[in-house]
């Protein structure tokens, strides 16, 4: 015998304002097999939950329908209620009368009718629901962190310090990321390397962290608690175990090419490390520019290496790792301003980017901290900063990159400290000094005589002497102004890392319209993704500054630990299952499955589909693809669907 209870939530006036809940309750009470109907102001509150529990116990209810908000909000709350009251949590249906009725309609009578339809559909379905049990799955207590900038470093250290193992993969030859390129950081003007390098060393010496540098993740399979990763360790052209990092090879290498790490402002050798404090301190042979590899001549580095580490023939190596959770901390790329032709980057020598200026200002950079302009090496006396290049721009990226205001202000202040007579102009739309101590820092810069010009730069053009003229609409004077300066610095925004599409595919995570990885919920799940067991840290999720990145990285560590600190996870039983006796083994389901959850097995010398319960998300695509109905999605069977249709089309449920 079926004994159903229906509970209708007012949600304050959210539901009760547009639905006549008393009328709805009256109608619902007449449905077959319904023993009790109650309405309540806030069902999700404790007394609301207690009301349901009490009825289940005292009236022997065996199934429950809750007419309230979307199941995304409180399905788990009410499942727990059923469980605690002693009945199977899957004998519950939610009729979403808020998002699907009261919030989207404006005629009370008709909305009430529709709400009743939703309720009787739910009643029809709940009668067909079966009791289900969660599935246990073992957890590998280790985390894979992709990217070893400050975010990845922080996440790894936080996890390792609690005592769990970390596999840290970095694409570049050294860890450190973008932060290692910076000289000083705002607003404290701390030396970036002084705070970063101790952490880098900590990573390399922590026995719980297995570091793969100059490596890329090529393949990830599996599911929460049980991921399997294939990692390609690219050949450095030398044996890292033998190399002592003495630097003799780099010193003697005859080839010089523009250095990527210096943003093209300086030169590096064909065998090189990124910077003196690189971790690991092992060079890489740039195969595209090495004279021996391209022309078969030279071989100097091999001759001078006292450790005999150089091996031009050394190939890539594939390593495999098993982990329970993944944290993506792949960082950002600076926006390439070449596409903003009006600003002349790439055509005019004295138009550089903010990151290039950063390298010039860096005491360990190509000019040892001296700001000179590229065309003639002169010290620029008049400098213009152009904000929002590629950001807040309909033609490039609509979003704000969040750090460029403070970055420009910091660099302007540093130049002013070196050269008090320098004249500095910052062209801005809004000055976004929003972080701790930022507004105060901005104020201080103004007191140093740096001029803030409110207006977007329309064009930059070059004079014969190499100077550039910045043309902008000064919105405070209401005039178009031209300003000849010695050098213009473009404050370029952040864009998703060039290989982020590859990482997205590897993990099956989503990206937003801005191209950054999407978090599971903008407000309350900022470090999770919609793929269970995969988390985000740092600028891979969206532009942010260093403190926000560090805080978020700690959050990602905490969330990943939430998975791997358990030895067993319980997986949702709402998944598809195959009736192997009926299955013809055609494989259509395998092709359509987005999650790689289906494989074909041989069963009594014929093919049949089998579903991996840990990978199946219960989307139901396979049930539709199946040609003879041998796959069923638990509690979403054809029988249930027909019953639901009948309830709403055929009148009485």
């Amino acid at each position, binding site marked *: 015998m079926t004994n159903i209870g229906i509970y209708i939530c007012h949600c*304050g*006036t*959210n539901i009760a304002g547009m639905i006549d809940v008393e009328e709805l309750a009256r109608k619902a009470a007449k449905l077959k097999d319904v023993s009790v109907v109650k309405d309540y*102001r*806030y069902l*999700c*509150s*404790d*007394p609301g939950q207690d009301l349901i529990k009490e009825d289940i116990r005292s009236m022997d209810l065996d199934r429950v329908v809750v007419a309230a908000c979307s199941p995304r*909000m*409180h399905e*788990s*709350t009410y499942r727990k209620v059923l469980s605690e009251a002693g009945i199977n949590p899957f004998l519950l249906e939610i009729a979403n009368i808020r998002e699907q009725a009261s919030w989207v309609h404006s005629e009370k009578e008709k909305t009430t009718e529709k709400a009743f339809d939703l309720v009787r559909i739910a009643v029809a379905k709940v009668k067909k629901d079966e009791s289900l049990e*969660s599935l*246990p799955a073992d957890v590998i207590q280790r985390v894979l962190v992709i990217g070893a900038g400050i975010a990845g470093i922080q996440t790894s250290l*936080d996890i390792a310090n*609690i*005592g769990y193992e970390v596999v840290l993969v970095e694409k570049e030859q050294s860890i450190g990321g973008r932060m290692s390129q910076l000289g000083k950081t705002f607003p404290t003007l*701390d030396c970036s390397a002084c*705070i970063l390098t101790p952490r880098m060393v900590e990573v390399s010496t922590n026995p719980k962290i297995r570091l793969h540098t100059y490596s890329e993740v090529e393949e990830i399979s599996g599911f*929460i608690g049980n991921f399997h990763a294939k990692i390609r360790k690219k050949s450095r052209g030398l044996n890292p175990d033998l190399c002592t990092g003495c630097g003799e090879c780099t010193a003697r290498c005859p080839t010089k090419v523009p250095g990527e790490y210096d943003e093209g402002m300086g030169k590096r050798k064909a065998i090189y490390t990124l910077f003196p404090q690189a971790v690991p301190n092992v060079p890489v042979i740039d195969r595209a520019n090495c004279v021996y590899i391209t022309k078969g001549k030279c071989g100097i580095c091999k001759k001078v290496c006292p450790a005999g580490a150089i091996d031009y023939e050394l190939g890539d190596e594939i390593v495999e790792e098993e982990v329970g959770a993944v944290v993506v901390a792949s960082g950002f790329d600076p926006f390439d301003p070449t596409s903003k032709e009006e600003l002349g980057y790439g055509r005019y020598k004295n138009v550089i980017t903010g990151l290039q200026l950063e390298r010039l200002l860096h005491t360990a950079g190509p000019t040892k901290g001296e700001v000179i302009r590229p065309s003639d090496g002169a010290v620029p006396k008049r400098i213009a900063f152009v904000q929002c290049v590629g950001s*807040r721009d309909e033609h490039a990226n609509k*979003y*704000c990159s969040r750090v460029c205001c403070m970055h420009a202000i910091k660099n302007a202040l540093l130049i002013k400290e070196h050269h008090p007579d320098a004249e500095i102009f910052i062209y801005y739309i*809004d000055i*976004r*000094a*929003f*972080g*701790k101590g930022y*507004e105060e820092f901005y*104020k201080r810069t103004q007191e140093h005589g740096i001029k803030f010009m409110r207006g977007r730069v329309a064009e930059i053009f070059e004079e014969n002497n190499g100077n550039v003229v910045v043309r902008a609409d000064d919105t*405070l004077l*209401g005039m178009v102004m031209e300003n000849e300066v010695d050098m213009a610095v473009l404050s370029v925004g952040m864009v998703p890392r060039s290989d982020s599409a590859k990482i997205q595919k590897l993990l099956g995570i989503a990206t*937003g319209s*801005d191209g*950054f990885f999407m978090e599971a919920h*903008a*407000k*309350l799940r*900022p*470090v999770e993704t919609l793929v269970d067991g995969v988390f985000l840290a740092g600028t891979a999720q*969206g532009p942010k500054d260093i*403190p*926000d990145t*560090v*805080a978020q990285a*700690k*959050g*990602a560590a*905490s*969330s990943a*630990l*939430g998975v791997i*600190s*358990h030895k*067993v*996870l*319980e997986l*949702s039983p709402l998944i598809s299952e195959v009736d192997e006796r009926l299955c013809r083994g055609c494989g259509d389901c395998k092709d359509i499955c987005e999650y790689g959850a289906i494989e074909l097995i041989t069963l009594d010398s014929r093919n049949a589909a089998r579903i991996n319960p840990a990978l199946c998300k219960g989307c139901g695509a396979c049930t539709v693809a199946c040609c003879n109905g041998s796959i069923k999605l638990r509690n979403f069977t054809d029988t249930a669907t027909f019953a639901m249709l009948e309830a709403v089309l055929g009148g009485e449920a």
Partner: protein
Amino acid sequence: MQQVKRWLVIEMKSMLVIGGGIAGIQSALDLADRGFHVYLVEREPSIGGHMALLDKTFPTNDCSMCILAPKMNECNAHPDIDILSYSEVAGLSGEAGDFSARVMRRARYVNEDKCTGCGECRARCPSKVPNEYNSNLDTRKAIFLPYPQAVPRVMTIDKDHCIYLTKGKCGVCRKVCSAGAVDYEQEDTFVDLDVAAVIVSTGFELFDPSQMPEYGYGRYANVITAMQYERMICASGPTSGHLETSPAKQHPEKIAFIQCVGSRDMQHNPYCCSVCCMHAVKESILAKEHYDESQSYIFYTDLRATGKGFEEYTARAEKDYGVQYIRSRPGQITEDAGTKKLTVWYDDTVNRKVKGLEVDMAVLCTCLVPAKGGEKLAKILGIEIDESGFFENMDELTSPLDSKRSGIFIAGYCQSPKDIPESVAQGSGAAARAAEVGSA
């Protein structure tokens, strides 16, 4: 949704979280899910903090309570979380890994174990007082629940306004309580808790704009704060989601939002509170959604739309909701004594003219300042606060969540101005740091 089973290998240590807003809730849940026992201490009768008072949240316009309430309930239902509401930390001794915290449990004159939250007492209580949870826009009783979704759902008697407690008469609530939960004899009690680490997440309160007489708050009926606006536009608020001007009781057609009231201001608070720009954009979108004929003006210094999706949100407000952004910091607001309409006087920095704009309602987007009592708490805990009242961290770049005392961590607005996602991320981050101490 997957449910994670707890796995207790060894007896786990306990943690103290001070402040039950969204940051503290997140810390508590993260720690409890990892098997630690958490004491969540909240000064107010209910956890939830300021997020519980918001209508919608930017930039997704999610209903705030709809996403917060499940977390509040999860805290309540979690076997490893003890909520100590209406309580304050009174002392702390020991060191990281082995603290002893003394918590004062203020007398709520209602037995928490007996009260069912039925509300009969409240219905019959004769004493009405301004309702601080609705920004004093309506009244509550002397025995009250802050809001319907309050956690724990237990009544509290406001002893300053209870007639029985002040004058020895009345006693109606005790008479009508069928659970026998009302206890006028209750006294403040102290409990000592052994904890491995402490997370401080005490949040913020709002700057009082009556300190800026030029805007007429408190004198002009139609000058309100952004929080009052938030409560009015909230369907479960005192006006059931209706904006009304005074005394005409009409929907406002023209609404001015004044940014940076008490922030970025050397006379009050020098810092930017980082959320008010977006808050005003959201409120102006809501105004248009409620009243199609309404027109919003946002008077801003710099429009700081810095978070994910924020720039797109402000653009949408302008394009689809007709919000007008005016770059200016108004000098004064005046009132027409007859119509009670307001004129916002401002320097139009684009046209370089002083102008006046007549509006029906002016909303002051006030600064968020660190919650009161921060100085006292800092002394009790032995941590430091900066000149603006935020708790100091070890290093803003590398240890943003570590206070200057080992084993004590800080998260959320009390650490520095921030929005909800940043508070949640920090709440989780502080939990990771606390767990490190607890696992040592």
